[in-house]
């Protein structure tokens, strides 16, 4: 196994850092994992109850027939876009600071998508009939496009995570033992780092990076089509495609930042994950936040200025009436505060950026709720207003899914290296201005 440019001990230190989450987790982390596990189990239990009793156990009704499951679907799949895009765009543009964060980015993309992709099924009245998507597809249906796009995206995301992992597994094989060793050996597929292997890996990674961008744009565009291809006021909008795409990247980059900050802090990876990488990601995030704020503004302005009655009815419900608290909370905590936290030098610390990204994640979840639910509460005929607040089953399933994503990410990096060893070593310049590596007992 050949890793270019670096001394043996330095390389071993990097491998040890990448495998740090595999060490014994300690009491606090074990407790966290157990609590998350209980929340997941409760969510699974709630879903089993819903399966047995029917979807009537939710708070959904004939007016508001899509609720928090649809929000989960859009939000969680949106989260995955940030990871996929960060990894892809930074690779394609050759940004050297990407080294320490691509693996975490790809990992978050994978786990959030894996959980998000469950919700198209969870929200069905007859989930056992989902196979009919394949046996009698109706090609005109936006939901069929959703299904095709999500499954394609899932496939690409699996490859996006696993292909760059191949050399790392070969490199780290000697540093792990037991079942991990066998797993690493099998999955590394005889990687020894020959020029031919490097060439193939480089081409595959580039091809995936190019591929994942249009695929992800497609996913979020057709997700928006489930809303905008109807004649409903508040949904029937040409901006919805790009609106959803930007929302997805915005919230997704926040997920990558939060995961990076947490891994960096908990496993003391400060020497490997430079603050610079987190900072650049945060700049990207607030740029997207400004863009999303602009989209929100322009959507409101076009609808409000013209003042077509059904559209302004939905608009004022969100801005001024029933949902105004939620909307302005989103504007403040989901847009303004995160942007200020990153913009202001004194709060532009890992902690500040972590808080900013957490606010963005919560704010964008709330915003998706505001996209899905308020338009449904306004009647298309007559004046009977729909009412919806998620029921206990829906809340438990949503909480279970959120906990499940975190638990999956923890599990993923209990098994696989959390840093892109090969990529970091190949980028080389990562190491030049680093502080001296503490002696971690290099045994080789």
């Amino acid at each position, binding site marked *: 196994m050949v890793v270019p440019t670096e001394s043996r001990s330095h390389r071993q230190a990097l491998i040890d850092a990448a495998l740090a989450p595999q060490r014994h987790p300690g009491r606090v982390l074990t407790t966290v994992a157990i609590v998350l596990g209980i929340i997941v189990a409760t969510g699974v239990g709630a879903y089993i109850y819903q399966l047995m009793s029917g979807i009537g156990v939710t708070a959904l009704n004939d007016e508001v027939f899509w609720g928090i499951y649809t929000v989960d679907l859009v939000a969680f799949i949106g989260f995955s876009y940030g990871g996929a895009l960060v990894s892809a765009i930074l690779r394609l543009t050759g940004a050297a600071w990407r080294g320490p964060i691509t693996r975490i980015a790809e990992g978050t993309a994978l786990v959030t998508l894996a959980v998000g992709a469950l919700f198209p099924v969870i929200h069905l009245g007859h989930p056992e009939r*989902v196979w009919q998507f394949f046996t009698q597809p109706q090609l005109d249906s936006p939901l069929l496009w959703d299904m095709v796009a999500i499954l394609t995206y899932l496939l690409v995301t699996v490859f996006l995570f696993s292909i760059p992992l191949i050399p790392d597994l070969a490199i780290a094989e000697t540093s792990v033992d037991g079942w991990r060793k066998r797993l690493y050996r099998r999955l590394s597929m005889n990687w020894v780092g020959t020029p031919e292997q490097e060439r193939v890996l480089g081409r595959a990674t580039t091809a995936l990076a190019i591929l994942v961008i249009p695929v992800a744009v497609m996913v979020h565009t057709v997700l928006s089509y489930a809303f905008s291809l109807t004649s409903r006021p508040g949904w029937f909008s040409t901006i919805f495609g790009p609106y959803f795409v930007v929302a997805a990247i915005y919230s997704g980059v926040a997920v990558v930042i939060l995961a990076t900050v947490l891994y960096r802090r908990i496993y003391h990876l400060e020497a490997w994950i430079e603050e610079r990488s987190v900072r650049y990601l945060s700049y990207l995030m607030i740029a997207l936040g400004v863009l999303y704020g602009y989209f929100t503004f322009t959507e409101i302005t076009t609808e409000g200025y013209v003042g077509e009655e059904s559209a302004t009815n939905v608009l004022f419900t969100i801005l001024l009436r029933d949902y105004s608290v939620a909307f302005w909370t989103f504007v403040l905590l989901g847009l303004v505060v995160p942007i200020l936290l990153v913009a202001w030098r004194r709060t532009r610390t890992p902690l500040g950026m972590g808080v900013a990204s957490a606010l963005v994640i919560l704010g964008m979840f709330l915003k998706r709720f505001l996209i899905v639910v308020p338009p449904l509460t306004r009647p298309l005929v007559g004046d009977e207003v729909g009412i919806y607040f998620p029921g206990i089953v829906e809340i438990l399933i949503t909480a279970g899914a959120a906990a499940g994503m975190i638990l999956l990410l923890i599990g993923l990096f209990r098994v696989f290296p959390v840093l892109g060893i090969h990529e970091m070593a190949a980028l080389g310049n990562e190491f030049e201005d680093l502080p001296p590596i503490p002696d971690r007992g290099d045994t080789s």
Partner: protein
Amino acid sequence: MSFDADTMLAHGVTSSLTGGLGRPGLSRRQFLKSTGALGLSAALLGVGLERVLAADDLDSLGKLSEHQWTMVFDLRLCDGCRDCIKGCQKMHYLPESAEWIKVYELKDAAGQNYFMPVLCQMCQEAPCVRVCPVKATYHTPDGGIVVDQNVCIGCRMCMAACPYQVRVFNWDDPPQVPAEVAQSDPELQIPQQKGTVGKCDHCLHELREGRYPACLESCSMGAIYVGDLMTDVATNGVETVQLSKFLRDGHAWRFKEELGTESRVYYISGWGEDLDY
């Protein structure tokens, strides 16, 4: 003005009846697409034939265009008693919460209240059919739209797409249906299944047997007419009218015409004049 099947095919059924309300090119295309083309191509391919047609023998192909059902609501007569809702629920064994026909109390331009019953508008360019991912909701050869309860996955996309808000979800088990009433035919939607979307089925099960829809039967005001575009006849169960003349004389309009759904349910508002019948 007289109508026969060939004239209708040539000019488009709805547009020739409403004198410009419809769009001739589209409705003709739609008509051919939704009936002949769909039925024939399915028959030729042998794919899903039993779902396109009520019966799966080739004889029924000949019946494709024998009737093209339509409904007319004379709003001058509707007093908002909601008997149509009760009749419909009884016919289809629906819980009280499931209204396949709804009666709205609306205000006209002069500020007068009026009642407007709304059921499935029988769109020939139906948004609900287009968005169903598994072809569970589809056009019947006689102009109706039904949901195959055995296919519907309960995604509710059709509820999002329907501009008329006429689709209802079966959140719970429907009331018990006597065994002799239960239908195995997917177009005859009794009983409903929990977890699927339900909607007005135009009482095709009654119309095809020569009986009236339940809402019409239970309307004591005679405000509900069922008609046949092929024979240009409509009736409210008491009197029979020439459909095209009735629509023209009453300045009939279609709900949300601007959405291009090419619906087959007509409304007559009247202008406050005395009724001569």
